[in-house]
């Protein structure tokens, strides 16, 4: 861990400010990505995720503050040569074959991966001779991933990588991303799927209104919302349930109730003592999605916003 921190960061935004039209997309954002880290960047739509990616990849320049990539300017070709990027909604030339397009991107890098290796890692076997325009959405995403890893990058940026993929393809991509992390690559991941962030990332950064509102391991983020969900069937009434030790919330769905508690053992001891017919009992930690939603709601400036449904990530 200490050796990790002595190395220069892979990528960094320092006090980055970026205006896009009338809105302030980034408002003094700080984000440092260290070698070997897999960072998931989460936040509601318009929080500044895409702008952060655009600054780190050199596509946009910060109005104030700075963006650094491998201790250089992200606009320098040399710094970008160590980075691979999979953009959200990026297109492919319809008239080039998968092999031609991947080979073209290999050529941009000084020490590219062998073509066969890229094709295998991205799960594109058998599609090499197909035109990019004839591929399905999920297959096109895999080609985008192939382009991102073509240069054996030290920093992999994945912007909504599994949009449009079926479950098998997602799992396949996760395996490939884990292999890149194991190889020592740092990863910046933005995603709408919290399970994806949980499966891949060792660090979660939640941003909203252009600022970081939470930063830590997935476990640390979840513990920020100190709630555990107890679900069961019981004959106790809502009022009785609400009176149990440490209970912070009660809800009913069908025949099952959900108790939110700050201490599952304390609540369970009382629940089981009062009602010996308790059945179908499960205890689960607050999900990452639950935690992130609450963090974003808590940071919302107006109470009116906190009431409305906040879409996470």
């Amino acid at each position, binding site marked *: 861990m200490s050796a990790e921190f002595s190395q220069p960061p892979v990528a960094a935004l320092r006090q980055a400010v970026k205006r896009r039209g009338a809105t302030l997309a980034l408002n003094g954002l700080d984000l440092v990505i260290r070698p070997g880290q897999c960072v998931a960047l989460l936040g509601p739509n318009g929080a500044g995720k895409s702008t952060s990616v655009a600054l780190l990849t050199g596509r946009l320049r910060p109005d104030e503050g700075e963006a650094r990539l491998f201790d250089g300017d992200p606009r320098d070709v040399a710094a970008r040569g160590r980075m691979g990027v999979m953009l959200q909604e990026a*297109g492919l030339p319809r*008239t080039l074959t998968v092999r031609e397009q991947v080979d073209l991107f290999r050529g941009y890098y000084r020490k590219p991966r062998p073509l066969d290796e890229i094709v295998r890692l991205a799960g594109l076997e058998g599609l090499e001779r197909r035109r990019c325009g004839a591929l399905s959405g999920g297959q096109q995403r895999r080609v985008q991933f192939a382009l991102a890893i073509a240069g054996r990058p030290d920093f992999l940026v994945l912007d909504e990588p599994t949009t449009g993929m079926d479950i098998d393809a997602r799992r396949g991509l996760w395996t490939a991303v884990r292999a890149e992390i194991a190889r020592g690559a740092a990863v910046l991941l933005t995603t709408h799927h919290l399970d994806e962030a949980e499966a891949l990332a060792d660090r979660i950064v939640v941003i909203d209104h252009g600022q970081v509102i939470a930063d830590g391991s997935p476990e640390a983020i979840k513990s920020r919302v100190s709630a555990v969900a107890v679900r069961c069937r019981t004959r106790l009434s809502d009022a009785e349930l609400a009176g149990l030790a440490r209970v912070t919330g009660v809800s009913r769905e069908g025949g099952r109730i959900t108790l939110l508690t700050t201490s599952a053992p304390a609540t369970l001891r009382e629940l089981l003592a009062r009602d010996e017919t308790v059945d179908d009992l499960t205890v689960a930690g607050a999900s990452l999605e639950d935690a992130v939603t609450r963090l974003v709601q808590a940071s919302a400036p107006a109470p009116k916003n906190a009431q409305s449904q906040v879409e996470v990530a």
Partner: protein
Amino acid sequence: MHTLLVYVREARAQIVSTWHTPQFLIPSVALPLLFYGVMGLGLSKGREEIAHMMLANYVIFAAIAPAMFGFGAAVAAEREAKLIELKQIAPLPAGGYLAGRLAAALALVASAIGLLGVLAYFGGVVMVPWRWAATLGLGLASAVPFALIGLNIGLRLGSQGATAVANLLFLGFCLFGGLWMPLSLMPGWVAKIAEVTPSYHLGQLSMMLSGMAPMADVQRHVSVLAAISLAAMIGAWAGWRRQTA
């Protein structure tokens, strides 16, 4: 060396991509050939000077469509598909993408003009070798201003708008530049419009180089063309920069 290779690969990929698009390739090469074959050679049988004069104009005509559409409107489509974004992020030297596209457009123009030259040669047009080289060479060079104009359109409009505007300009350049019909056969106001089209000045130079008109006003024609190219280059540069503001 690496940088140079990247440029070469980018150009090759663009050429391959164009080659894979016969619906673009065939009309842009075949149309000038067909027009020239029918009107330049077929209808002017026995009057070689007309075929000769038309060749001088058609080498410019053949350059406009591939340059403006292949280079201009196609950029709009790729911009819409967010293809350019990825290229701007990839470790590709600045301008590598545009250089590749320009090379592909020039390759297409070269093949169209080359075939036009072959057709004219066998159709009876007679020139000394340097005039052949100068006429066809000017046609190839004329792709540059048209490509820059096309790029201005492609960087500023959506793909549908870009195609429409490029079409309009293409027809305007051909008609008002006097490439299809001599300006002397058209009303006087057309000649005034012709003055601001690159096609008119290129056509005039082409006539001189192919020996169908005496050398005159060369400096003025070249100056106007240089001014148009420079303005288009600045406009394209500004449009390209605006995307990464």
